[in-house]
């Protein structure tokens, strides 16, 4: 049973990690908690399903298109909601983020209706719904392996983008000091837009994976996932991309083990208790840089 619970937790955790990366990247660059990120994740799932059912595209194409659409949405979100507030107090942007989150959620409610939708199974490659591996009581589906592969692949790609490309270097420069970066000739707004696009794309992938994995999507799905992923991002050390990944996995595994061994009613409680304990012991998250505390 323990092995099964670990697999369950890992799947969940990797999905959290994918969403958390979006939070952490935006935070790293402009110190904004982008609470509308959960809605991008929801939009990703809905775009993908709409492209499959309405336009009849095959799964992988629809997935790619949905991710691109979400990346554009991310850029748009930044331009409409956050760019005008770059110089405003930090909390103002937080409120705009909440406002956009409410707006997008209810927009989706109007467009797609409130009923939970199933993911169009027929469009999925057949192998995904088969068991990949059964060892006694432990089972692993191809779908889970697919999620592992996509999540880890995206993370590695992201790491390479941040550390090996010029734009990635610009992002890191921006995270350190925006004014200095601007003085070095970096186009600040373009880089921020790129960050939003990248984060939103990761969120969209997570949304699609979740919709496939659980075979359901609904307009409010972004809220819970967004909140959990935010917790994961902070747990791992906000602003740190590997941290978001570790945080997501820790949170997912804590949740699964909590539900399995402590009490299913305190499932989220175990996750949050672990989170609080970790943060109290390591005040800047698991992999976060120690902030210089003036006090």
């Amino acid at each position: 049973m323990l092995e099964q619970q670990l697999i369950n937790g890992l799947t969940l955790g990797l999905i959290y990690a994918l969403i958390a990366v979006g939070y952490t990247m935006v935070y790293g660059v402009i110190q904004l908690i982008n609470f509308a990120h959960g809605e991008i994740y929801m939009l990703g799932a809905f775009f993908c399903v709409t492209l499959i059912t309405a336009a009849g595209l095959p799964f992988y194409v629809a997935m790619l298109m949905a991710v691109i659409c979400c990346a554009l949405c991310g850029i748009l979100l930044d331009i409409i909601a956050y760019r005008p507030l770059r110089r405003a107090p930090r909390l103002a942007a937080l409120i705009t983020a909440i406002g956009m989150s409410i707006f997008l959620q209810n927009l989706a409610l109007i467009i797609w209706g409130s009923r939970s939708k199933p993911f169009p199974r027929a469009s999925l490659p057949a192998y995904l719904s088969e068991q990949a591996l059964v060892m006694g009581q432990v089972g692993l589906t191809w779908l889970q392996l697919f999620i592992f592969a996509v999540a880890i692949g995206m993370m590695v790609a992201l790491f390479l983008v941040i550390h090996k490309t010029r734009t990635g270097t610009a992002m890191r420069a921006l995270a350190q000091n925006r004014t200095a970066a601007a003085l070095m000739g970096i186009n600040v707004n373009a880089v921020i837009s790129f960050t939003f696009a990248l984060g939103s794309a990761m969120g969209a992938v997570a949304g699609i994976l979740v919709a496939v994995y659980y075979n359901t999507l609904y307009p409010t799905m972004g809220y819970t996932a967004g909140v959990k992923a935010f917790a994961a991002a902070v747990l791992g050390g906000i602003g740190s991309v590997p941290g978001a990944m570790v945080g997501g996995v820790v949170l997912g595994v804590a949740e699964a083990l909590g539900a399995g061994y402590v009490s299913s009613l305190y499932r989220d409680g175990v996750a949050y208790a672990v989170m609080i304990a970790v943060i109290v012991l390591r005040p800047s998250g698991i992999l976060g840089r120690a902030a210089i505390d003036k006090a």
Partner: protein
Amino acid sequence: MRLKSWKTTLVFVCAVVLAGAPALAQTVKIGVAAPFTGPAASYGENIKSGVETKVAELNAAGGINGMPVEAVYFDELCDPKEAATVAPRIVRDRAIVGVVGHVCSSAHLAALPTYVRVGIPVISPTATNVTIGDQNADRAGRVWSFRNVYLDDYQGQFLARYAKEVLGLARIAVFYENNDYGIGLKDAFLKEAAAVGLAVVGSEGYVKGASDFTPQLTKLRGGNPDGLFISGYYNEGALIAAQAANLGMKVVKFGADGLDNVDYIQLGGAAADNTYMTVPFLAAAAPEQAKAFIRTFEEKYRRDLDWMSANAYDAVGLFAAALAAVGPDREKIRDYLAGIDGPEKAYEGITGPTYFNAKGDPEKMAFVKMVQDGRFTAAPRQMR
């Protein structure tokens, strides 16, 4: 100066709000309080489609005694605080003679003090919490809130006996939603299971809106159950059935009316097969008028009729009957509804005869239907 004009606008808007509404006495209005946004919005949609159908039907027949009927929708998100705010808004409009709602028991309980204090009859098509029956009387002992859905405890007991006697199951795993509906149902089930000697190998909970149930199911699987009691609603129920199948659990699934929605089959896919559920009516055994309704409904909304819509349809029907008999007067309507207190006076709706006991709770029969090859059918064996 800018500040001042802004304030003028605010004052103006407030004035408009205060002055609005009391006009047009000709139409009879029925308030519908349900969640149309937020996580529970799909339940509100069910209610709305049932109400809409009945109202359209009434108006097509020339209204009630010549008065056209209008449904006024109030969104309360299944949130107790919103419900408590909406309630005085509803009772303020004197043209509203009755309320269909609320969907969630907690919202209903929060709104109830206002309805009871001001005096407006309410029929909830879905709120199953047993406590409502103790909170719905005013100080003169008059009951203002009725419901045409049966209570949690009745279905729970019924299911325990059905699982043991008809389905012949021996080891049951219980998976319940951690809200008033799920817990009430589960408790009644567990009690009756102990009484009839049905072994319960595990009992786990989940929260509404969750989508990952594998940790709990993995734990339940350890008990080797042959039956899985899903004490919750269809959205989560379908995912539970699917994830149980993914984990390789071969179990008979059963639940109460909460599972009865075509979305259960749509979301659950093949895993939804072999699920039994209690329902207040069976389409196959329905009276002729009900069949006509079911046809209209399915044509209009392109999905199978669910119990929420059916109950909402009947709730409006109850109000229509009262209005036809006593006219648009809140108090008289209440007296009329309270007067439906025995099987001989029962209102014949599409969900079978409905009548209320002294607490405003219904006494209804339960039928069982099941999912077979991706469709709802009547279960081969019913139980009396």
